[in-house]
């Protein structure tokens, strides 16, 4: 009854109680107070939880760092359980950033293409089922992607990598010395497929919201379909695509099971992205957590904290890019 107090202010037709005298202050009814308390409480709770997580991570991380004999940022080693413990995140940071960047380079153009096709080119009969299939890709559990990557992608990428080595091997980045393709590049491809659905569906939604009058402005000037997209759809969707990409990047940075299943980890920074080796923050935590002792676990937490900060920076950068264009997106 408290939730629907609307009848108490209007002259109540059923109850005989007199209506309250008019107040100068705007009336607050029980519903307002309940909702205010509820929403304020939720907000505070969220902040408390965030602070608690941050404090927990920080305390454990500091504990690990105080025992570390190596340099946390430059050491190419993860022997957190030996005495004295020696560990550094250089390899993990490199692997995480590089594999995510490869994923972004592959996934974002494809996602924009698919989103434009679904929103502006495909006939509705085709667009609707296609959207469903893309959304369905997002529902596949990451371990399934991992198994598929390990059992299908890895054996089939050797040929491509040899070809890349023949033509681009001189760059060093695409050198490949026969072996299982359990490399950062394979991870990048797998992550690209995994983040494709989220980037695509967010981009599609943004493209569909392009104001009709902006598209007609271009059409009436004699723009072709692609020119309409270039002049009105893409500029309008720009910040949305950036947000979508950052969502995808967030997932790629933190992806654990698929990476742990496919990658053959090592604590070396390999200039060739096609050769096996390397590691990522999340994969390293998943792979090492079980056989870690007290300090080892705290060291993993410290690396997790770095991943947390990295993700935060990525989001901050995305917001800056979006804000810089704000004047133009009225």
């Amino acid at each position, binding site marked *: 009854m408290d939730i629907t107090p609307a009848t108490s202010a209007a002259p109540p037709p059923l109850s005989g109680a007199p209506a309250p005298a008019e107040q100068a202050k705007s009336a607050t009814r029980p519903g307002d107070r309940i909702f205010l308390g509820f929403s304020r409480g939720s907000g505070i709770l969220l902040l408390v939880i965030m602070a608690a997580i941050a404090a927990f991570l920080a305390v454990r991380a500091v504990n690990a760092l105080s025992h570390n004999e190596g340099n946390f940022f430059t050491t190419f080693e993860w022997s957190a359980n030996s005495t004295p413990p020696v560990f550094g995140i250089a390899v993990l940071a490199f692997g995480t950033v590089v594999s995510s960047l490869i994923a972004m380079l592959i996934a974002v153009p494809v996602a924009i293409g698919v989103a434009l096709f679904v929103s502006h080119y495909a006939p509705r009969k085709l667009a609707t089922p296609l959207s469903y299939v893309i959304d369905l890709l997002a529902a596949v559990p990451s371990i399934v992607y991992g198994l598929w990557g390990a059992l299908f992608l890895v054996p089939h990428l050797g040929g491509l990598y040899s070809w890349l080595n023949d033509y681009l091997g001189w760059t060093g980045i695409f050198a490949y010395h026969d072996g299982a393709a359990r490399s950062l590049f394979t991870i990048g491809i797998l992550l690209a497929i995994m983040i494709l659905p989220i980037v695509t569906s967010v981009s599609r939604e943004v493209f569909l919201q392009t*104001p009709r*009058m*902006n598209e*007609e*402005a*271009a*059409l*009436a*000037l*004699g*723009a*072709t379909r692609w*020119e309409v997209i270039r*002049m*009105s759809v893409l*500029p*309008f969707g*720009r910040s949305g695509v950036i947000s979508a990409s950052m969502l995808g990047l967030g997932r790629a940075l933190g992806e654990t099971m698929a990476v742990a299943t496919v990658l053959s980890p090592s604590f070396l920074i390999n200039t060739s992205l096609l050769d096996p080796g390397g590691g990522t923050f999340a994969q390293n935590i998943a792979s090492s957590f079980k056989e870690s002792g007290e300090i080892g676990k705290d060291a993993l937490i410290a690396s997790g904290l770095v991943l947390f900060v990295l993700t935060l920076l990525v989001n901050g950068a995305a917001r800056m890019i979006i804000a810089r*264009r704000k*004047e*133009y*997106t*009225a």
Partner: protein
Amino acid sequence: MAKRIDVGGLNAYYGNHKAIEDISMTVEPRSVTAFIGPSGCGKSTFLRTLNRMHEVTPGGRVEGKVMLDDENLYGPGVDPVSVRRTVGMVFQRPNPFPTMSIYDNVAAGVRLNGGRVRKAELDGIVEKSLQGANLWKEVKDRLNKPGAGLSGGQQQRLCIARAIAVEPQVLLMDEPCSALDPISTLAIEDLIGELKERFTIVIVTHNMQQAARVSDRTAFFNLAGVGQPGKLVEIDDTERIFSNPSVQATEDYISGRFG
């Protein structure tokens, strides 16, 4: 520059719904023709058939012919994109490209149509178009500012500058003043008077005083009832339509007896 429009037996549909039926009329070059009529009578739909914008609406299709001098806009092999380059359009609500500067907004059509244009030449076109739209004095010091930052009336004049920058044969205006205040409306009406020296202008308006003020010829559209297609009742010199129309329905509408 300006061309004559000759429409014959034109029907337009939204899916299975016939929106306008059997419209025939001639629009003289270098004149202003106003379309008036009650809401839903199909005058905007008809306007949009004149630059093949009707068919971009899902389900939209057109039967009949629209001759621009000797060329049928709906003839086989006619590219709608090139039609829209010769028949420019200004919309009800000002719609400058929100991410583009004032300069780029005016240059947008030229860049599409001409591909690469020399910078000096483009500067000239932009200045001439903005002057043609009576906007140059107000914006010449901030050509690189976003077009969306202008007032509503200025934005509409920017859209007119954008449309005339590509030197169209015909300029279509779909209620160009309905979102503007009286002073901006006056500025646009004055501008229409100047533009008819160079272009064939067709304007849809709900404001009968506006039709009387700006147009040489007036066409009255009406529909028999809800769900019925709109039809052209009559087209005549504006003076005659507003003083002594030949059809009773026109007189009823103009004198405010319905609509």
